[in-house]
């Protein structure tokens, strides 16, 4: 019986800038069903953090309730974690981020956690433009309670038991764009080539970065007739672009076809290099993105890749003009300036 992963790793495992191998970014062995898409997303997060040479202790993973929200146990075992109340991950993340702005925040949620019980929190965290990566592992069903249709299940999608979903689906990506999220991407758990650079870019986005990742539930929602199965998604997926995340690169590469190549500069000087596949789409124009999503929907296509990015808007700390030192590092001397300073302030009101 193997509930423990063997400790040996490939002796020639590559090392990153910190001298760590991927092992330092792994978590415990997953207890999700074999073949769960969520495990692939976990692996993509591990790979992205490893390749970005992120210090594991500078990452916090915060989740709600559900299969998706269990996954933080299965990646970044050396990072901080908070498994919060169902649908309330954004509140906890907001609190944590307010206290310490120097961390990378991974919010991990599912379609039930975000699109049903946590919808209110989801909407407001977008409104606040909290600096975090918000990943929805979207499988269109409640996998933890035997696979009932969730709010993101497509109308007409057939469940494993044979019933057809009569309700319209909530399209989280469209919703996020409508609400003004500053980084919106969609991907598929089975395509790490796309997912890993998206996660990297999301980590570098200063503001709310939303990733809606379709992640098949092998146990309850991988049947013919389902619109979230491996086969269906692979047949109906359309990528907006192929993309590279460029951590530091000044000069322009020329191997992309002219007119199809777009680059988006992030706050910290990093770049997203996009090789566009979709026409009439501009990742920095909300209207074109909304149109592209609507067009894709009418054609039964699942549009993936980076959909929208806006680097102009301030994140929550920027809006609130907080000090540059994280609040949790402020000393008593900073917070209580003393009688003299108080006198000065009071004098200012006289």
């Amino acid at each position, binding site marked *: *019986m*193997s*509930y*423990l*992963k*063997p*400790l*040996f*790793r*490939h*002796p*020639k*495992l*590559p090392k990153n800038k910190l001298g760590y191998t*991927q092992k330092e970014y792994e978590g415990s*062995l*997953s207890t999700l*069903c*074999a*073949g*769960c*898409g969520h*495990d*692939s997303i*976990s*692996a993509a997060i591990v790979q992205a953090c490893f390749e970005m040479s992120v210090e594991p202790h500078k990452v916090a993973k915060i989740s709600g309730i559900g299969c998706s929200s269990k996954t933080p146990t299965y990646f970044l075992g050396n990072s901080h974690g908070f498994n919060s109340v169902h649908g309330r991950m954004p509140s906890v993340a907001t609190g944590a981020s307010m206290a310490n702005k120097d961390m990378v925040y991974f919010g991990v949620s599912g379609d039930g956690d975000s699109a049903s019980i946590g919808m209110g929190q989801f909407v407001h965290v977008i409104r606040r433009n909290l600096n975090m990566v918000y990943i929805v592992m979207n499988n269109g069903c409640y996998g933890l309670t035997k696979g009932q249709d969730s709010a993101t299940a497509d109308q007409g999608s057939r469940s494993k038991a044979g019933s057809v979903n009569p309700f319209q689906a909530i399209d989280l990506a469209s919703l996020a764009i409508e609400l003004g999220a500053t980084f919106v991407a969609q991907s598929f*758990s*089975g*395509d*790490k*080539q*796309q997912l890993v650079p998206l996660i990297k870019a999301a980590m570098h986005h200063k503001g709310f970065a939303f990733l809606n990742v379709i992640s*098949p539930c*092998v*146990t309850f929602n*991988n049947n013919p007739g389902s619109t979230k199965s*491996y*086969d269906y998604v*692979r*047949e109906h*997926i*359309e*990528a907006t672009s*192929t993309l590279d995340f460029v951590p530091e690169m000044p000069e322009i590469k020329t191997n992309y076809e002219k007119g199809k190549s777009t680059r988006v500069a992030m706050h910290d000087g990093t770049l997203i290099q996009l090789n566009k*596949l979709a026409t009439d789409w501009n990742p920095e124009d909300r209207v074109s993105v909304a149109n592209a999503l609507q067009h894709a929907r009418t054609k039964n296509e699942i549009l*993936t890749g980076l959909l929208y990015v806006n680097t102009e808007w301030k994140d929550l700390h920027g809006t609130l003009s907080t000090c540059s030192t994280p609040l949790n590092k402020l000393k008593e001397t900073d917070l209580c300036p003393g009688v003299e300073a108080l006198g000065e302030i009071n004098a200012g009101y006289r």
Partner: protein
Amino acid sequence: MSFFNKNWESDIKPILTMKPTNTKDPEYYHKVVDCQYACPAHTPVPEYIRLIAAERFTEAYMVNWESNVFPGVLGRTCDRPCEPACRRVRVEEEPVAICRLKRVAADNKGDVRQYMPQGPFPSNGKKIALIGGGPASLTVARDLAPLGYEIHLFDEQVAGGGMMRSQIPSFRLPEEVLNEEVNFILDLGIHTQFLTYVKSLKEVLEGGYDAVFVGTGAPKGRDLPKLPGRKEGDKNIHIGIEWLAGVAFEHTKSIASKVIVLGGGNTAMDCCRTSRRLGGKEVKVVVRSPFDEMKASPWEKEDALHEDINIIDNHVPLSFEVNDGKLIGMKFQKVKPVYDENGKRQLLPTEEDEVFIEADEVLIAIGQENSFPWIERNIGLEFDQWGMPVVDEVTFQSTNVKVFFGGDAAFGPKNVITAVAQGHQAAVSIHLFCEGLDVHDRPSPYTNLVSQKMGIHEWSYDSGVAIDQRYIVPQAKKSQTLKDRKKEVELGFDIATAYKETQRCLNCDVQTVFTEDRCIECDACMDVCPTSCITFTINAEEPELRQNLLVPAENLTQDLLVSKELKTGRVMVKDEDVCLHCGLCAERCPTSAWDMQKFLYNTTKANQMITPLPLIEK
């Protein structure tokens, strides 16, 4: 069209790609079992290690006996080519103590005779002569006796065993262990003629035998006839293997206090350690090559050093020094190794003065050679320019179709396990030949592939991977072992330690079997594999594909398992190099596209061959 193809539109699709691996070829999975593949006799190592773990020592012994004939002997003295091949070496550092685990099976076995062929066997009317009573001949005898052959074994010594008796000292291989295993074979109804030196092969051939097997080893120890002082000091200069035989048969009972042993192989180690037990106080091994490049097995060198033997490397002998007709020592030239760009070594003299080393007796253990003075050159048996018989490498048949060779006699000195392996093959040939069949038409190996799945997380093998480091075999106290040359130095693992050592085995024979049709490409196996062996990628030519894996597959001696093209146009590629056979890929596979299946591979022995049905005339 899948999105993967779209993403790759701009790429140039490679024209040449790797073909799907043919796992139906028994050699593919066989090669994955590194230890078994490296063993000349292809003993199913993981199979018997699991039996030892289950304390089924008798069965473990029989798995060995079936394959290598002398588990007790080999569990102590084997050259163990399996161990450097062990996957554990590539994963951590030290191999599983395969050899010493084999000894545990032999030490703790129960009644094994009940599982051995039971004579008397109905005669098939054929008569075979075996010349020499060493491991090769005894293997032939064991394989052919149950088929009804009348077997006559000739040996010049008083008992069977060949070099296992005459050259391996008792402190490494107790006589009782050897006798027991030799007798298992002789008791199958072999007609033995000991103390019989065969003087003429022609005479043997005229004796009405249907076939003759020559397993006379490499009986001639190399000498240094041209070295000054060799003749004058002859009384105190001995050839290593002859001297060891003298000790074994109790003709030699003592040695002088100061001894020089020339040579750096295992025979030199046996000579120096035996000298320590026969009265040698200052025993020095002097060898031409650097210490690290000596031919002796590392563990043999360690044991010699432990017994206060001085190993002096980089010294080339110049002369034997004799005073008043008595040997007083030897002179040596110091050399240093110089390597050219191809890594070829040259030993160049240093500027330093000649070195004189005192000695009362010298043992020359610088190699051994074949010697066939008793084979006539006019009986249709060709010899090559080096005086070696011309022998087919597969069938072991000589140019005289009735005469077969095996062991050191066939291709020069190697080791016991090679002799056994060759004995098996020669026996197959002899049987084919006596049946009037083509000796080149070899029987296929026996193979079996069975799923080990018992439940979601349960396998019928122990899939956990122990991180324990290799356990050390305890030794008897030096104060005791140096007093008595028959006192075995190694005590062997106790059962508890043996169990821990067995858990280090990675069960490489439990194969990761991949079925493409079931794969849904969820990547679960790729994500979970602890040693990053599995990659789903676009097919390419082998060198390119090897570079495109999660961790590039740079060990070219290890194969890639390549699947057929999958739905998305990719292939599954598994680098066999450091797979732990932990079964996690199969546990995390939702569709059982991966399964752990135990692969058993046994070379077919003569007594296991299916005899073709007699032709019925119409």
